[in-house]
């Protein structure tokens, strides 16, 4: 993401191909495409990935929470949350400019003024992230070559996927109603703050912490929050937990593939320009992913329980690689990307295999293991920005016009970046754990967080009256208002012929 006081050198002068002078049609086309790729990672990507990994009786509930979570985030995003993450610092007026006015309010470094992004001019004018803009006067051109609408939607798909990753920790027992209340509150109090801290120009951005596409803002946040929530909501039914056997590996393949290639938009869209850096981020993303995938498979073959390559192991490795490279995708070179994938995959494989035996890890039922594949993977991925960031990959311009690049220990001789990354991670861990705890504590005063045991026994049918693979045998149509039933339509009959035109 754009770093405070930095401006991407690679951006060319926007050709005036539109009536809006700031707009570069190529940049804007890529931004909307990238955003759509990321949206597809959630729906249907995560919906079918998780659906394949749960038992048959939880498929509908899993997909329903994914789609509804995606929906409610957009509502709070345009009504107040986008501005909290990317707007004017809290307590400062709408016309505030970083270049002329200092931040006077301490909390302004953590969150922005809530506000809507609904009006015509708000959506169509040149995009603006006030705290970042302040550092972007530099040499012409200044600022985004995109309309605000593109940035609002691009940032929305990131805000939306975060609680959906978190969902993996609490699947198969969280109450649907609690999910619908939790997601908007978490987006408001946790995600918007994470985003402001690292991307909106807040405290950690000012300290020089770098999170290219959300190793901390998204993956560490989802892993930690999911773990806390899983502890508070309690485990799945013992019987479900004892045989948490995925019901469809082909669905996992479909979801996993969409998530992998959707990540080209996830990391490739973050420069905000269809630039060389965007292409570098995409190729780095895929290199880290194949390195991590193959590393996981090799660990499985060498040290796994049966010493065999497993498909679900490959999927875990793939996810770890994608998460690992996310914070550094546009800051590292190809060698760094390969190293990051292999190292993070090894760390997470070890944690998945050995740390999972620790008693406190067993006690918390993190259904999909999000704390490993997103929490731990995101944490170390972020640290590795400080190790592998190569200043020759991308150069930004500071307020004064001097070039700045993200430097790490090996290629930039700047080991302090590791410490900055670590402290930013600790902030995210503490804040998100606290917010998750408080939100669920408050909700639990009004309604239980989990379904009843009787509902858990049945699953989808108890919660939604739908099942994933309904049987059409032995079924009769209940006619509303008549209090009686009739057989379902014979094949070939039209609805009106069977129910007398009343349907």
């Amino acid at each position, binding site marked *: 993401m754009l770093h405070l006081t930095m401006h991407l050198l690679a951006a060319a002068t926007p050709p005036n191909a539109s009536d809006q002078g700031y707009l570069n049609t190529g940049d804007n086309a890529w931004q909307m495409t990238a955003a759509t790729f990321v949206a597809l990672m959630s729906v249907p990507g995560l919906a079918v990935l998780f659906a394949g990994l749960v038992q048959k009786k939880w498929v509908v509930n899993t997909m329903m929470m994914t789609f509804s979570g995606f929906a409610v985030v957009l509502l709070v995003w345009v009504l107040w949350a986008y501005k909290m993450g990317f707007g004017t610092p809290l307590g400062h007026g709408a016309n505030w400019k970083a270049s002329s006015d200092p931040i006077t309010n301490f909390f302004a470094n953590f969150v922005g003024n809530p506000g809507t992004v609904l009006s015509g001019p708000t959506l169509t004018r040149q995009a603006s992230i006030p705290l970042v803009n302040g550092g972007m006067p530099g040499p012409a051109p200044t600022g985004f070559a995109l309309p605000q609408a593109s940035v609002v939607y691009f940032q929305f798909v990131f805000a939306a996927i975060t609680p959906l990753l978190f969902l993996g920790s609490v699947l198969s027992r969280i109450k649907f109603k609690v999910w619908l209340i939790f997601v908007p509150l978490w987006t408001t109090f946790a995600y918007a703050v994470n985003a402001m801290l690292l991307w909106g120009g807040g405290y950690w951005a000012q300290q020089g912490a770098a999170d290219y596409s959300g190793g901390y803002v998204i993956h560490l946040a989802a892993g930690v929050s999911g773990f806390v929530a899983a502890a508070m909501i309690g485990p799945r039914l013992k019987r479900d937990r004892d045989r948490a056997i995925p019901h469809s590996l082909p669905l996992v393949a479909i979801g996993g593939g969409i998530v992998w290639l959707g990540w080209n938009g996830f990391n490739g869209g973050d420069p905000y320009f269809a630039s060389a850096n965007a292409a570098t981020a995409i190729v780095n993303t895929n290199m880290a992913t194949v390195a991590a995938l193959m590393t996981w498979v090799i660990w499985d073959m060498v040290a796994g329980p049966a010493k065999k390559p497993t498909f679900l192991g490959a999927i875990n490795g793939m996810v770890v690689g994608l998460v690992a490279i996310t914070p550094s995708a546009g800051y590292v070179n190809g060698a760094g990307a390969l190293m990051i994938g292999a190292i993070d995959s090894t760390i997470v494989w070890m944690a998945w295999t050995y740390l999972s035996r620790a008693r406190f890890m067993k006690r918390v039922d993190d259904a999909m293991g999000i704390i490993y594949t997103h929490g731990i993977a995101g944490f170390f991925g972020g640290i590795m920005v400080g190790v592998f960031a190569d200043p020759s990959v991308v150069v930004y311009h500071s307020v004064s016009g001097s070039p700045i690049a993200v430097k790490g220990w090996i290629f930039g001789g700047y080991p302090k970046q590791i410490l900055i990354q670590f402290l930013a991670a600790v902030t995210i861990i503490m804040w998100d754990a606290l917010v998750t705890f408080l939100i669920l504590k408050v909700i639990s005063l009004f309604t239980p967080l989990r379904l009843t045991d009787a509902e858990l026994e049945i699953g989808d049918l108890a919660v939604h009256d739908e099942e994933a693979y309904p049987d059409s045998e032995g079924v009769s*149509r209940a006619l509303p208002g008549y209090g009686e039933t009739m057989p379902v339509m014979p094949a070939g009959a039209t609805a009106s012929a069977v129910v007398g035109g009343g349907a």
Partner: protein
Amino acid sequence: MILVTAVIKPHALDPVREALSYVGIAGMTISEVKGFGRQRGHTEIYRGAEYKVDFVPKVKVEVLTAAEMADDVVEAIAKAARTGKIGDGKIWVTAVDSVTRIRTGETGPGAI
């Protein structure tokens, strides 16, 4: 020789298998079936239309054993599968004329 057939709640399968091992039963065949008895079915809703589903998922357990084991086997299944609620299922016993082990060609009680 007899065949004991039981139709039970799917959740009861594990306790039933354990109870049968305990009385010395070394093999069984199970299948997922659907049926209805006194237990009511449920309603499902698709695109606003309500459907009554009368058949409930059950597991059918089949155990081939010596006639003198009949009471023990029936009792073990009944105990393990009982919740006291409607829908616990049924057990029945039928006589078996002959049993052959395919691999060896053995017949009679020794083939069980």
